[in-house]
């Protein structure tokens, strides 16, 4: 889907990534995935475990483990290919231009360093600032993510903070150098529902204030409503559908997206009758070491046709700003 906009920030083109595993065929985690991120835009990547969504996110920052191989494709950013950059050049991008909010800040924060110093470390590596200016900047960041007592929080260790507070520290760290893109991998899945909403509101505010673009990864479509501009749906390493958020919820096209949206409606308060079975998607996602021919969702698809088992669906554009890979919409 070539873009007519020149506001592209990041262009992921035909990205293919596999992991080599001892004693097993390689796992093709991401398979010819393409995706564009525009300036100041919030994109939701929706997918369940094994869909390749986290691999895609980590690949943008080149943070994949050594057994990952970039088999094909490119990630274009500011006229260059991120996949071609050497480590010192990458370091100038990470944290400065593109940053990451991890799923569990309890794991990503250093337990023996005060959280303020950990944020300060990011600032120090990218911005020329005096020690006192840096300290002030970090305290401002802490206030910007909703801490009233910024000074106290600065001196706290991660274990002294609650899960929600730690996630806000993670956010402050990610926006410390005012990056153009923040990647958030399941930023709310370890939080309970009230805190989830709080974190999403905070991210929306940051985007409004600074025009930061966000790539948000989640398995739960509900967090994208009212937050993401576009949703990209991944299944078994492939992008199977993309559309504006309202369209995805109102008229999901791919049978997999349809099933996910139907499942998420349960979260939206229409569960009055107790002990009613949920509508389910039968079966499990395919084993990515043995991908056969045909649509990857076909074995679980309620609308499976003959052709789905024998051919790979092509990506179609049934309407503007929409793409879907499914034989229902042509071949």
């Amino acid at each position, binding site marked *: 889907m070539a873009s007519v906009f020149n506001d592209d920030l990041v262009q992921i083109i035909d990205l293919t990534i596999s992991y080599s595993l001892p004693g097993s065929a390689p796992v093709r985690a991401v398979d010819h995935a393409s995706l564009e991120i525009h300036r100041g835009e919030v994109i939701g990547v929706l997918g369940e475990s094994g869909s390749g969504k986290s691999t895609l996110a980590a690949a943008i920052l080149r943070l994949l483990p050594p057994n990952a191989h970039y088999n094909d494709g490119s990630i274009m950013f500011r006229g260059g290919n991120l996949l071609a950059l050497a480590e010192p050049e990458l370091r100038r991008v990470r944290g400065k231009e593109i940053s990451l909010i991890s799923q569990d800040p309890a794991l990503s924060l250093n337990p023996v360093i005060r959280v303020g110093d950990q944020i300060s470390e990011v600032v120090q590596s990218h911005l020329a600032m005096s020690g006192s200016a840096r300290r002030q900047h970090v305290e401002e960041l802490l206030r910007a993510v909703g801490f009233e007592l910024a000074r106290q929080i600065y001196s706290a260790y991660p274990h002294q903070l609650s899960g929600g507070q730690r996630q806000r520290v993670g956010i402050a760290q990610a926006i410390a150098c005012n990056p153009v893109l923040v990647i958030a991998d399941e930023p709310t899945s370890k939080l309970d529902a009230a805190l989830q909403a709080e974190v999403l509101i905070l991210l929306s505010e940051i985007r409004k204030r600074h025009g930061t673009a966000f790539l948000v990864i989640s398995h739960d479509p509900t967090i994208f409503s009212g937050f993401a501009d576009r949703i990209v749906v991944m299944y078994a390493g492939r992008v199977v559908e993309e559309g504006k958020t309202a369209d995805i919820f109102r008229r999901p096209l791919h049978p997999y997206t349809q099933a996910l949206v139907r499942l998420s409606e349960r979260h*939206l308060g229409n569960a009055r009758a107790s002990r009613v079975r949920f509508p389910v998607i039968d079966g499990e996602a395919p084993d990515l070491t043995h991908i056969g021919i045909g649509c990857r969702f076909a074995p679980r698809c309620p609308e499976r046709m003959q052709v789905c088992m024998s051919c790979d669906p092509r990506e179609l554009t049934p309407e503007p700003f929409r793409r879907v890979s499914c034989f229902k919409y042509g071949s």
Partner: protein
Amino acid sequence: MGADAHIAGNSLPFLRVCRLTKHYVRRSGIARKRIPIAAVRGIDFEIAAGKTLALVGSSGSGKSTVARCVSRLERPDAGQIWVGDTDISRLGNHDLRSCRSEIQMIFQDAVTSMNPRFSAAQIIEEPLLIQGRGSKEDRRTRAQEIMSEVGLAPNSADRSVMEFSGGQRQRLAIARALALQPKLLVLDEALSGLDLSTEAQITNLLLDLQAAHSLTYLFISHDMALVAHLADAIAVISAGRIVEQGPTAQVISSPNHPETKALMAAANAFQKNYADVLGGSR
């Protein structure tokens, strides 16, 4: 009359918890002074046989402590836990052994509750082995029976637990819990952290198993929307106390306590957004 009284006893709750109290001790300062922290402060609830009570609360409310006390992984400081006509709150290890086959627990993170070196069959057979049930062949047969009952292929019995996906491991955890044919399952956030489609599958499995075996569930969760779907009654816990309880429909439709309202609001937080997305034309 004695026998009749026992039959009439069927209308008695299967599980009755009275004034349950549990403190943890935190050691603080150079002198390692002992500071008691009240996790659960005298709570009461009961569950009728074959029913589901959801214990709902936010992080740190004490809900997991209740789960651990009821399944007697912890010894409560005060109060009683009546299972039928036995109070299990004071039982020692020896007497607990027989009650453990009545009450089984399922944890949030299935994989950390399993020995990674075990095969699926070993995981399921272990409780049978500990309780000295059946011969080696019997246990193996039973493991395979349960595997197919929870939707796992019996021919994967020799695969290591690490080879199973997240959803399959949660099925395996349920299989292990069912091995001893318990009457009560304590499910501590057993569905959180799962994908939406897996969560739906496991919920359906729990409903099917409950219907097939008349199981009683104590379902611990922070998710009001999920709980509304599968519980007969809801108890809301906050700071170690139950602040509201009643039949599901009643608690959901007219929540009284601020904590209940907060949990409801959290569950509905995205509903308004969702309505806007569907209604508005962006």
